[in-house]
């Protein structure tokens, strides 16, 4: 049995440890009275335990019948729809409580009778061949444009949305805005129709699968594929953001892949906004999946382009691990998690994911948008450098700093030693030259020389944020890292000195060393996955420009002062 001090009860409580640790703790708790008590105290104090038991023991009296619940919900439905800010909304829309069901029943009514017996129907000059899909917003039909002789995808706004004036106008306005975005990674919009009875958008038919289907059918993607796709999505988003258009619903189902081609295209720009208006009015909840919402969306706050970056982070997480970062049984739980909880790092689920990619995803998933990358183009540029590195790992340095949690104790020991040596050397250096102001000035004049590099040419700054990418230096983040470092060193000392003097014998890992989770719910990418992966084609899409010249991200062109 493990001794008490090796048991981390808080981790167990938060369900954040792996299966092996948990079973160890479990068997420890079988017999250790002190830890049993401690765990309970950690969960709540004595009084809370008693109160909870008292109240919940009579809680069954509070259970309402389903019909009563419905009646009550009806009395206050208006509240959730319009708490104090309903100025822009139309008068109460006449809709049923279950929009998707409604749409299912009515969708065929939007078609005119077919002119050709093999067709499903007709919308204006488009012959409708089949139904491709259906979502909270409406239906997607496969059609053929007789006039221009080309296949099209037609998205018809669901009847329950079409009857809402605001939603309809917004649908048309956003579609028109999206039509102005011309980019290889954005599905082109051909025409927008905003008739009252049948508003629709005609767009390019992309004959392939959505990323949702790709991952569902083939499993998580290879790291390079994830990065290639990420670059393209970020590029597409950047083009839209430049036009002042926010996507609002970046998710795998809205990114289409061309068949057997490495290009991906984003669809449904801004359309989520049309649903936002009425989606809330009906059930109090957004229609569709909330898994990729940003915290600011989940809270109903104003959003800016950085909201799309959060969703991009969730999407990349999904591509790399095969699961959404925030999961719960119900939408409500998902939203709560998006707002309040940090997801497991991606490489805790799929250990093939390098720490750098995990860091990028974590950064995109920052709750506060000021801590994310600040623009889609910045994200794309960084990822481009990273892809170049992945392709030539021996010649380039990673443009992204790896997450600390990916380091083993040993690497920590080395890193700490390096830093201590560097710091000592730098202190000496300063002491020696501090009074020589002339020298100091000339030193300041020497552009691009990092004093630490001057002192110790072997010193590798652990902070490549200054190395040629668009990342700016963030004082606060730096201070935080210093604090983290302090804490880690302290921990290290404790573990080396007191608890585990023979540490070097074991390749032991820091508490949430995630890449080595043995109980990963997702099988790591196997060779078979590699073969299936449609994005591992040797041809690179045109939109990707790999810097062919010397490393962009080395410390040579670092400029810091």
């Amino acid at each position, binding site marked *: 049995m493990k001794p008490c001090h090796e048991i981390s009860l808080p981790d167990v409580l938060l369900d954040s440890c792996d299966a092996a640790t948990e079973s160890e703790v479990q068997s420890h708790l*079988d017999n250790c009275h002190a830890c049993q008590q401690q765990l309970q105290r*950690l*969960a709540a104090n004595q009084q*809370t335990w008693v109160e*909870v038991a008292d109240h919940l023991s009579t809680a069954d009296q509070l259970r309402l019948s389903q019909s009563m619940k419905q009646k*009550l919900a009806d009395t206050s439905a208006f509240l959730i729809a319009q708490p104090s*800010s309903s100025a822009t909304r139309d008068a109460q829309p006449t809709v049923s409580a279950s929009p998707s069901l409604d749409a299912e029943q009515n969708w065929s009514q939007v078609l005119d009778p077919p002119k050709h017996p093999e067709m499903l129907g007709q919308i204006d000059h488009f012959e409708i061949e089949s139904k491709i899909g259906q979502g909270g917003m409406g239906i997607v039909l496969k059609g053929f444009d007789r006039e221009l002789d080309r296949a099209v995808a037609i998205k018809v706004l669901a009847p329950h949305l079409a009857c809402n004036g605001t939603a309809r106008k917004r649908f048309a306005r956003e579609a028109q805005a999206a039509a102005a975005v011309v980019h290889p990674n954005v599905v082109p919009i051909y025409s927008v129709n905003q008739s009252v009875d049948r508003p629709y958008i005609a767009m390019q038919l992309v004959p392939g699968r959505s990323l949702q289907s790709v991952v569902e059918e083939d499993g998580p993607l290879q790291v390079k594929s994830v990065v290639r796709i990420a670059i393209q999505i970020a590029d597409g988003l950047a083009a839209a953001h430049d036009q002042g258009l926010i996507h609002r619903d970046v998710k795998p189902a809205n990114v289409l892949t061309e068949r057997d081609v490495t290009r991906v295209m984003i669809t449904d720009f801004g359309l989520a906004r049309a649903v936002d208006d009425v989606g809330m009015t009906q059930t109090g909840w957004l229609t569709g999946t909330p898994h990729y919402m940003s915290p600011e969306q989940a809270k109903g706050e104003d959003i800016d382009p950085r909201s799309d970056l959060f969703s991009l982070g969730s999407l990349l997480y999904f591509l790399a691990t095969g699961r959404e970062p925030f999961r719960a049984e119900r939408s409500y739980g998902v939203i709560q998690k998006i707002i309040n909880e940090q997801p497991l790092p991606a490489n805790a689920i799929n250990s093939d994911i390098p720490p750098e990619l995990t860091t990028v995803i974590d950064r995109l998933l920052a709750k506060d948008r000021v801590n994310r990358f600040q623009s889609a183009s910045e994200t794309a540029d960084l990822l481009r450098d990273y892809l170049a590195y992945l392709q030539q790992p021996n010649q380039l340095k990673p443009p992204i700093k790896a997450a600390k949690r990916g380091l083993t104790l040993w690497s920590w020991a080395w890193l700490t030693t390096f830093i201590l040596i560097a710091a000592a050397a730098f202190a000496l250096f300063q002491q020696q030259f501090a009074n020589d102001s002339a020298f100091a000035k000339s030193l300041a004049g020497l552009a691009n020389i990092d004093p630490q590099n001057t002192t110790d040419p072997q010193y590798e700054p652990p902070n490549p944020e200054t190395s040629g990418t668009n990342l700016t230096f963030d004082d606060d983040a730096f201070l935080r890292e210093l604090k983290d470092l302090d804490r880690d060193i302290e921990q290290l000392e404790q573990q080396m000195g007191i608890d585990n003097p023979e540490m070097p014998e074991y390749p032991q890992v820091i508490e949430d060393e995630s890449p080595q989770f043995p109980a990963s719910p997702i099988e790591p990418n196997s060779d078979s996955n590699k073969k299936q992966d449609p994005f591992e084609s040797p041809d690179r899409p045109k939109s990707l420009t790999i810097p062919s010249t010397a490393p962009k991200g080395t410390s040579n062109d670092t400029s810091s002062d």
Partner: protein
Amino acid sequence: MSESPKTRASLILRLRRPGDEVAWAEFVEIYQPLIFRLAQSKGLQEADALDLTQEVMARVAKAIDRFDPNPDRGSFRGWISRITRNLVIEFLRSKHRRQITADDSSIQQLIESVPSPSDSQWFNFEYKRQLLFWAAEKIKDSFQETTWQAFWLSSVDQIDIDSVAKTLNLSKGAVYIARSRVMAKLKKKIEGQLDHPTSLQPGELS
């Protein structure tokens, strides 16, 4: 891990923020059944109690911007219970006016039975109960059935750990982990909701 409860804006502040549907949904889920039961306990018929509940909610929505969250000015719960009380009285009065046949003593009795300062205890107690019930319902689905059972049997039904372990075919350690995990989550859930825990002062409702 997750943000500490302190960083989370209190429910009231969130309710004021335009478009915070999550906050409103939570508010409705917790307070609505409470107000409804209060109205029923004062003798209102189901349909009337529903109307009254709707009215209370509407007034809260309208007036939330003016509510002073300063605890010295009374708690949020107190404010809501005051709104409820006034509406119940109003309702009974207007009903009385319509029913001329009703004799004075009965209406007097009804009005006297309307929540009074001593009822604040009732309201506070019921609020806590409702809140815990709500939180339990909310988090239940995020646990496996046995985890939940382990919590419920050992904590609420107060069956000893050994028996619970045997019944559910779990180890003792697993039962301890299960009940503590549920409790921690329950606590976190309600911490986001509790407004100022100051109890109402006598006379505040008058």
